[in-house]
């Protein structure tokens, strides 16, 4: 909050003036929303410009439905299962790319069939994510894996790269499928089911330019007077979170690097014992044993750093990107609030018009309220899954290390009898 106040270099009085009516007007807004959920949903669909299917109850973002779905998520009533697997390489004259099989199993009425299987490539996922961002601006859209991890350095068609990406894409779709609102998105449905996604993409092109405008028009001009404390805190949290994850990512990479260098030395170390064993008679066997033991430790170490590279790093990266997505949504929220504040200010200047509150301002307020509610719900959901994911991730890291040490332990323990036999030398 501290840095926000420095940004808002408006006179304090004005700031106070703006906040107070906001707070005063909140209760009636909630009242109305509860009474007319459909109305609120329609308002929300406005900035997109896309016709949202209002007949589907879940596609609206009304508080009522959201709450219901939240309950559903906690229970075990999942009805949409999506998996990404079977990557295939396609070599054409123009380009080479990978497609992934996207399999859907569902009992939802929005789907004609209980099961779908389509092939999609990275740019289709990218398209889906853009569409979701456009059509659900108030929601946190899960991140996609980066397009190129490191340009040129990474072989995009290597097995490891494709597998890591497949996992990330799988995670991406699963997160959407589990989301009470996003999973009902029309584009998501099309992505999962359409035989010819490209045809659909072209069809949507015409609408794209319009939507771009509607999202952009608030960008310039307004500065936020007072970001509600909780969102300011959320922003601050995300900044630190991303920073810390970035550090952890660097540490993890450094550890992997150190481990690989350690591995190089160990690989040289083991055979030296073997060479020595070749010179000796009585010590031959023990020395060979030590050499083999170090060899086993090498294998264990290799597995450890492989696991860390394939399982640990990608999750960290996903969450770094996730926090970026979250920050974007926060920014959009600020824009919507700024728009509302501007209108409120304009209204306040013409105090005499007070009695007839313009519907425009009211609509704007609704949008802010809905945005806040959506964002809070998403944040909460995100916090939950983050907690679970990190618990799993870090426990996994501990497990891998335990396994590594256990393998080495077994190796070293197994050579003790080899070293101890032949006691007649004494």
């Amino acid at each position, binding site marked *: 909050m501290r840095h926000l106040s420095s940004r808002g270099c408006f006179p304090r009085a004005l700031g106070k003036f703006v906040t107070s009516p906001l707070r005063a007007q909140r209760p009636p807004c909630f009242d109305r929303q509860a009474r007319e959920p459909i109305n609120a949903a329609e308002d929300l669909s406005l900035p997109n410009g896309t016709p949202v299917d209002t007949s589907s109850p879940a596609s609206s973002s009304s508080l009522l439905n959201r709450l219901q779905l939240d309950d559903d998520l906690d229970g075990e009533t999942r009805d949409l299962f999506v998996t990404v697997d079977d990557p295939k390489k396609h070599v054409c004259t123009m380009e080479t790319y990978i497609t992934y099989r996207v399999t859907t199993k569902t009992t939802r009425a929005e789907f004609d069939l209980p099961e779908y299987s389509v092939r999609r490539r990275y740019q289709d996922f990218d398209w889906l994510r853009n569409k979701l961002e456009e059509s659900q601006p108030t929601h946190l859209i899960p991140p996609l894996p980066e397009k190129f991890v490191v340009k040129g350095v990474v072989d995009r068609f290597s097995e490891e790269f494709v597998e890591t990406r497949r996992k990330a894409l799988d995670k991406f779709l699963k997160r959407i499928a589990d989301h009470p609102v996003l999973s009902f998105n029309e584009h998501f449905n099309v992505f999962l089911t359409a035989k010819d996604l490209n045809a659909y993409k072209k069809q949507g092109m015409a609408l794209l330019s319009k939507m771009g405008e509607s999202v952009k028009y608030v960008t310039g001009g307004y500065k936020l007077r007072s970001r509600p404390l909780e969102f300011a805190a959320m922003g601050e949290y995300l900044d630190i979170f991303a920073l810390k994850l970035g550090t952890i990512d660097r540490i993890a990479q450094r550890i992997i690097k150190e481990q690989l260098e350690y591995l*190089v030395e160990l690989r040289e170390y083991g055979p030296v*014992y073997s060479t*020595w064993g070749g*010179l000796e008679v009585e*010590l031959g066997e023990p020395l060979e044993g030590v050499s083999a033991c170090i060899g086993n430790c090498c294998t264990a170490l290799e597995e450890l750093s492989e696991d860390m590279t394939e399982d640990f790093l990608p999750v960290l990266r996903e969450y770094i990107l996730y926090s970026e997505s979250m920050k974007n949504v926060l920014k959009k929220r600020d824009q919507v609030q700024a728009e509302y504040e501007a209108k409120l200010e304009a209204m306040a200047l013409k105090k005499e018009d007070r009695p007839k509150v313009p519907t425009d301002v009211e609509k704007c307020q609704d949008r802010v309220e809905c945005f806040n509610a959506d964002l809070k719900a998403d944040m909460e959901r995100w916090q939950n899954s983050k907690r679970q994911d990190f618990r799993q991730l870090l426990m996994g890291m501990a497990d891998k290390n335990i396994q590594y040490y256990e393998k080495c332990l077994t190796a070293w323990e197994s050579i003790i009898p080899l070293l101890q036999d032949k006691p007649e030398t004494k």
Partner: protein
Amino acid sequence: MEDCLLKKIEISVSEAEKRTGRNAVNMQETYTAYLIETRAVESQTEGQCSPVDSLWRRYSEFELLRNYLLVTFSHIVVPPLPEKRAEFVWHKLSADNMDPDFVERRRIGLENFLLRVASHPILCQDKIFYSFLTQEGGWKEMVNETGFQLKADSRLKALSATFRVKNPDKRFTELKHYSDELQSVISHLLRVRARVADRLYGVYKVHGNYGRVFSEWSAIEREMGDGLQSAGHHMDVYSSSIDDILEEEEHYADQLKEYLFYAEALRAVCRKHELMQYDLEMAAQDLTSKKQQCEELATGTVKTFSLKGMTSKLFGQETPEQREAKIKVLEEQIHEGEEQLKSKNLEGRDFVKTAWADIERFKEQKNRDLKEALISYAVMQISMCKKGIQVWTNAKECFSKM
């Protein structure tokens, strides 16, 4: 080993002390002195005035003792001294001679050296060694009086010199070859081990960064906070555990180093044998040539082309008297040579016998020691693995509470 010195007295190097003094050229120098303590095992020396049971020696005196032993007992694999300068260390360890860790490791090494000599069946009976342990003043003079330096064969020092021995003893040739290979394999091992230690140190220490970042991260988390904070603590523990692990491993490296230097001692025995064989062969050759000369003079025929043959042709024949006198001298020399050869042969046979006995003893000692060293190394690795499992299990428990 029935009556080795160790049965009678206990020996230990119990302390090291930094000292400053003036050396031979009156230059200020700093050195380390080591306190040698000896104590009679059985108190049978009651009535007599008991010898000093503790005295100070510095490294250079140990060196003098070893050189004396090396020259005097050339048929013995003389135990080596610990390194003068720290070698094969990984970067974290200081290579400074005055570094307390290094001094401490050298103290252990010097004690080990004394124990090895004291438990050696032949070396332990040496008087100079005994006074090294018991007589503080005048010891150096005593060593020099033995004139061992005169006996020192300068040819032994010339490492590169190879003598063409016609009939080398196969066993010694093989042993020399073995000691060369042993030296190279152990030094390779030590070099790689130092690098392995370096890298391992890196792996552990980088984990320490998790400690900090987890703790910082925990500050902004609610439910996850406590788990992260305490897991961070375990990462700190993990990171610092490597210091003790590697310090302990240094002891293993020292055990290996002793055998690296033993390889040199082994080679010294081989070289000594080679030299003796060379001398023997030279003497034999000399004798044969003298015999040939003698025969030539007696028969008047020159079988081989020689300078003498040329001069005699140029300056005319010798008188029979002259020839007689020459033959006489030669015959005397031949007699002498034969005696010499006989004693050299005897000496050589004796050397081979005693040296080989000591080599056998050394081999047994080596097998036993190295097996023990490998066991303790494996035990070290096992304890490191257990520590690792412990720390990560603790960390996992913290994570599971998140």
